[in-house]
């Protein structure tokens, strides 16, 4: 028993060391990117940030900074794409939402969003209070508190404290029951790759996934589209107002 525990501890430490090694490397790149941004060398900044992503690491802040760098270098589509990605990690971050709003002003296509039912809107706001990791902390903490208070009230004669411990237990169970579905919901949002942003200046949307088919409409850089289907190098997209068409996969960035 003891030997296994030792092994686990060792593995965790080893992983941490490896992580720390790579982490400092990434931090270096991140700081270089920030530096380039400060010097208004936005292209360099974009390159630095992108190389972090290429190494297989990501974070909400990174996407936010990358979005800024793209925006400053005039690449609206990429800017919006990265702000949207940042929102996945930082759903309640004001900086991201403000910058996304400003970047969206530069989008050519104006598609009216149908208004949402207010309950859905509230629910969405509530879910977006935390990322899935944030909700996971709530889930974990409430579970621990509930478990401990349960253990205490079940096995010990607490006399006067009994009511307090019971109350803490029920309260934490309620928190757990609320946070768990929100965590799952956020997890689903974060791992959802059904939405994309047009990154090419203007893209002709066709009736079928063939270059020769009828052109239906044109979408411009920065427009958010729902990806319904894929066929080789083509995505079937749907706009917010319900228009559907096929566009080349390379002209859209998946959020």
């Amino acid at each position, binding site marked *: 028993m003891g030997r296994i525990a030792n092994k686990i501890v060792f593995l965790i430490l080893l992983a941490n060391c490896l992580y720390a090694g790579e*982490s400092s490397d990434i931090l270096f790149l991140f700081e270089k990117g920030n530096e380039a941004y400060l010097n208004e060398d936005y292209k360099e900044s974009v390159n630095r940030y992108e190389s972090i992503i290429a190494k297989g*690491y990501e974070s909400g802040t990174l996407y936010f*900074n990358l979005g800024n760098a793209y925006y400053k270098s005039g690449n*609206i589509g990429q800017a919006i794409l990265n702000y949207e990605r940042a929102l996945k990690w930082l759903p309640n971050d004001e900086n991201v939402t403000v910058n996304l709003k400003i970047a969206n002003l530069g989008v050519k296509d104006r598609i009216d969003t149908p208004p949402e039912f207010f309950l859905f809107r509230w629910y969405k706001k509530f879910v977006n209070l935390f990322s899935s990791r944030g909700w996971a902390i709530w889930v974990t903490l409430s579970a621990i508190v509930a478990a401990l208070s349960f253990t205490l009230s079940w096995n010990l004669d607490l006399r006067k404290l009994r009511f307090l411990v019971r109350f803490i237990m029920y309260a934490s169970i309620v928190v757990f029951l609320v946070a768990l579905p929100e965590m799952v919901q956020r997890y689903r949002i974060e791992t959802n790759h059904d939405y994309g942003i047009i990154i090419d200046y203007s893209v002709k949307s066709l009736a079928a996934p063939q270059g020769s088919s009828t052109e239906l409409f044109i979408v411009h850089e920065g427009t958010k589209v729902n990806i319904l289907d894929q066929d080789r190098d083509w995505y079937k997209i749907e706009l917010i107002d319900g228009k559907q068409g096929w566009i080349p996969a390379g002209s859209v960035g998946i959020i």
Partner: protein
Amino acid sequence: MILKQFLLLIIFVSFSFAKDIKMSAYVDRTQITADDVITFTVEVEGTTDFPNIPTPGGDDFVVISGPSQSSSIQIINGSMTSSKTVKWRLAPTRTGKLEIKSIGFKHKRKTYKTNPIFITVVDKSRKFASGQNSQQPQKSPQQPARPKTEHELYLEATPSKTTVYKGEEIDVSFDLYYKNVKTFSRKKLPDAQGFWMEEFPTRNNPDVTTEVVNGIVYKKASIQRLAFFPTKTGELTIDPMIIDCEVIVPRQRRKSLFDDFFDDSFFSDSFFGSTKIKTVASQPIKIIVKPLPEEGKLSNFSGAVGKFSIQSTIDTLETTQDQALTLKYKISGIGNINALKLPDLNFPKSVEVFEPKVERDVNNKRNKIQGTVVYEYVLIPRRAGNITLPALFFSYFDPSQAKYHRAVSRTFNINVRSQEKLFASQNLGLRKEEISLLGEDIRFISRENPTWYRSNSSIFSEAWFWIVNTFTLIIVLSAVGFRWWTEKMETNVAFARRRKASSTAQKGLKEAKKVMDVGDKETFFSFLDHAIIGYISDRLGLSTSGVGRQEIEIKLKERNVDVEIIKNTDSLLKRLDLERFSSGALSDSDCKSLFEESQNIISSLSKVI
């Protein structure tokens, strides 16, 4: 009145000069029935010294009355014209196509001759209309017969062409041929499906000329000109144009000797007659529209037919980023100006292009429809650098040469300077929403070291999440288990005894050892005995007192315990019984071995029961 005219003749006779004589002969109708009478008029103009005009001869007609003569003198702009009119009333002698033979006379050693006039005489019973078509010379073989109901009045539509290319202009002039029309008004312009129609301006008082058609003199007024541009191919029809005319109807008078005298144009005046409204229609025109030839068709041809040129202008060649430029393309020429379309423009990607403002100006003042189309584009360069606005190729088809041509505009190279220190939020166009945000920039980057995650990782791939939650689960389960355990220990004696058996046995052994160290051997043996028997009865749930060796042996056998162990247990218990009663006979080392043996027995028993 006649008197007055004679007086004038007398006064001005001395001013007359010998001029060339103009002579014409006409009849009032060319189609009559066998019972009708026609008036044959010969007019001689240009001399005051009128010769004698001979009576029309021939067997086809007989002179009923005449000649009745009248002469007039007119002075216009100082030049005098005098004319003499001689009229006969003739009756046909047979039906069919008859000829009024030409009349000739000599004047100052010159011979003048009138044209022969052909008259169709039909039987009274036959329909009047049946003979009409042969009279009307047809413009082209496919034209339908013009329904002419009124001899005095008809509207003639004359197309400039009847076979055209799609998009080519056809001019149709509408001429009114009439004798006694006071006024007219256009009632309906022709409907022409498949055409784009353009009107030429009309004058209120059209020019009136005199024209002789089939021997009948008509006044001809050109009342309307229309231009048609076919937009389809195939056989198309331009529908008739309809006009209302106010026609003078001579007053009905009794026939008398003075008829001839009064049957004079001078009296055919509104003063003498009443008017009535008549509606006349032109004949429909069939047009054959050919498709444009495929041969030599240019790639970006968009249907312009005619002759065109293109001009492009730009307001500046030097600009700053995000400053709007105005680019104009002006296409001008003759042809179907309304069907003009600019070909697709290939502007550089960095230039934002707004929808062009299109101004069309059609000019119908000339002989052919002309016009200009101006496309005004507003361009906003979004990036600094040199931009080339490429040349525009505008293709059109020239029907007169039956060839495609291409007009080319010039290219522009524009130098776009960058706008220094201008933030992106300001250069994203002029949009309503942005006014409130103008001057605001995106939020600055975050510079603190964030928490890094592996790509495609999620909360469910985090180790701590699983470890902590498993730990929590363990706490809950152990709390539940502990509770269950304590409850069972309290309520179930047999269970408690069984659970506590080994610890009770250990305790007994410990006490036995204590006693052994003191040297109380009798108590030592009894303690060992108790520990072993107590352990077995606790484990097997036997009563606490009075358990004999035999009973233990039986119970162990029931449990299918190994025979060896049963034998050892039995012999050990036997020995302990023996030693207890022969006290002090055993050495300390023997005691120790006995103690160890008891320990071994208990541990070996703990494995099987």
